């Protein structure tokens, strides 16, 4: 059940995308998200979608695996679609009492849905092809310049590392507790919303207690190995930009130009 959520998961591999420096991928993802908001017609999305699928093809992450992650956020996409569909004024296509669908609303709804799907797939490509530890290392390096104005870049990266590291642990823990309570006849699937919320108590309390225990153990283990914060800390594997990163940078600039140019193309519809 919980294992089906692939959003934010890492898909092991050794493709050129996997081998890129984490910093390159973070910048590329940020840029891609910004570009999705620069796009103002469906031509732009067509280009952005094609680019994304090229990256997916190069990364050799199965498309099925990526879309499985999308099902988790399907509700959000559907919600945005419906809100946009009914809330925009314009040329009326269909009407029933106070509900009406306009041409402009339909276009806007489709536009937003495509943007969201590309946004989610685009950012999940980053996490799918980058080990969490590389990702946070990359983030720490990228944030380093901001430590001049007092941003605790190492601490932020460490918190992210710990959070990411313990997602699977807590999922496993949750799974175990759910099973233990099911074995005692607990029922999490029937009843109205209040009964269901109440039925979560036997899961949440043990889970809270477990997470405190895990946090305490972790803090002790870190102290026992003389952890004292970021100052003067070295790493075993330094990350370096390589030739692939240069190529990626050039592609990013070209792609940005193409996306800006796409704004001036005539609209399809």
């Amino acid at each position, binding site marked *: 059940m919980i*294992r089906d959520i692939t959003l934010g998961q890492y*898909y*092991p591999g050794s493709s050129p995308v996997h081998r890129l420096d984490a910093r390159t991928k973070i910048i590329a993802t940020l840029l891609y998200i910004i570009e999705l908001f620069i796009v103002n017609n469906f031509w732009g999305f067509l280009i952005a979608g094609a680019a994304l699928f090229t990256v997916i093809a190069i990364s050799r992450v199965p498309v099925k*695996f990526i879309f499985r992650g999308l099902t988790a956020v399907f509700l959000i996409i559907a919600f945005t679609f419906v809100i946009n569909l009914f809330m925009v004024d314009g040329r009326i296509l269909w009407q029933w009492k106070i509900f009406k669908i306009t041409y402009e609303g339909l276009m806007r709804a489709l536009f937003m849905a495509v943007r969201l799907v590309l946004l989610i797939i685009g950012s999940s490509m980053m996490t799918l092809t980058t080990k969490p530890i590389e990702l946070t290392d990359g983030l720490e390096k990228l944030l380093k310049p901001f430590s001049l104005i007092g941003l605790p870049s190492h601490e932020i990266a460490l918190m992210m590392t710990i959070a990411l590291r313990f997602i699977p642990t807590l999922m496993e823990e949750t799974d*175990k*507790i759910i*099973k*233990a*309570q*099911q*074995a*005692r*006849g*607990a*029922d999490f699937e029937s009843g109205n919303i209040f009964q269901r919320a109440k039925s979560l*108590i*036997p899961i949440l*309390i*043990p889970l809270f*207690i*477990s997470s405190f225990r895990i946090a305490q153990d972790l803090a002790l283990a870190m102290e026992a190995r003389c952890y004292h914060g970021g100052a003067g800390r070295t790493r075993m594997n330094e990350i370096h930009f390589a030739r692939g990163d240069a190529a990626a940078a050039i592609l990013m600039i070209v792609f940005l130009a193409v996306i800006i140019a796409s704004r001036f193309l005539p609209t399809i519809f």
Partner: protein
Amino acid sequence: MSIEVKDLRYVYNPGMPGETVALDGVSFEVRDGEILGVIGHTGSGKSTLLQHLNGLLKPASGDVYVDGQCITDGKAKLVEIRRKVGLVFQYPEYQLFEETVAKDVAFGPKNLGLSEEEIADRVKNAIELVGLDFEAIKDSSPFELSGGQKRRVAIAGVIAMHPSVLILDEPTAGLDPSAHADVLSMIRRIHESMGIIIIFVSHNMADIADMSDWVIVMDHGRIVLRGKPREVFSHGEMLSGMGLAVTPARAIMNRISAEIPDLKSDALTIDEAAAELREYINRTKNI
């Protein structure tokens, strides 16, 4: 009362990069009032097997019959299966959540929809059966108890559902020697007074030899050995090849009979070993 497993197969993450066959054609049967010990190194499929016995996991193929009723055909009611087959996980004390011990033990029976009096009755009996003082402990928070007490409260929570099969996954893991002995004698007491089937997993070979009527040995998702404890522990080399071992008493006796060839030994427990040695000494004293 019986539990029968037929050709069970289970695969983790089918069709994904981490695909692993956890169970591969597992079959066995436990009859009325028997105790079955399960051994196998970490990752051999023991825990996966146990979770099939009360319907928490659904097999890829194969069937589980409890009392002749198939629980894997999708028709059986889950609450009914979980009433019949009680499963105590590893470190069950981590599942406690209520304010008081009595309330926590009542959680299972409540889910079965029993009457208030029936629940109160069962809670009292279950807490006493696990060897705790009901009056002294019923209103204390489960989080204030010692490790061994917590574990016994958690086991009481399952017993209070009056299962006909009780499954325990490493019930003595992480306990000190005295709590360890308490839990073992508690399992014996439950077995005697309720007359139910008990299936337990343990890494302690002495416990397995001591408690079980039958033993199955798992390796890579298959049952590789099964039989009476004496039979299973006679395959010492095979067991150590799988990262397991014979009982400590058996190991010592093997070592001694290697030095003294005319001391024939098949002892499993310390008591049996002591008897054999005493007999050998008496026999050779007069020569």
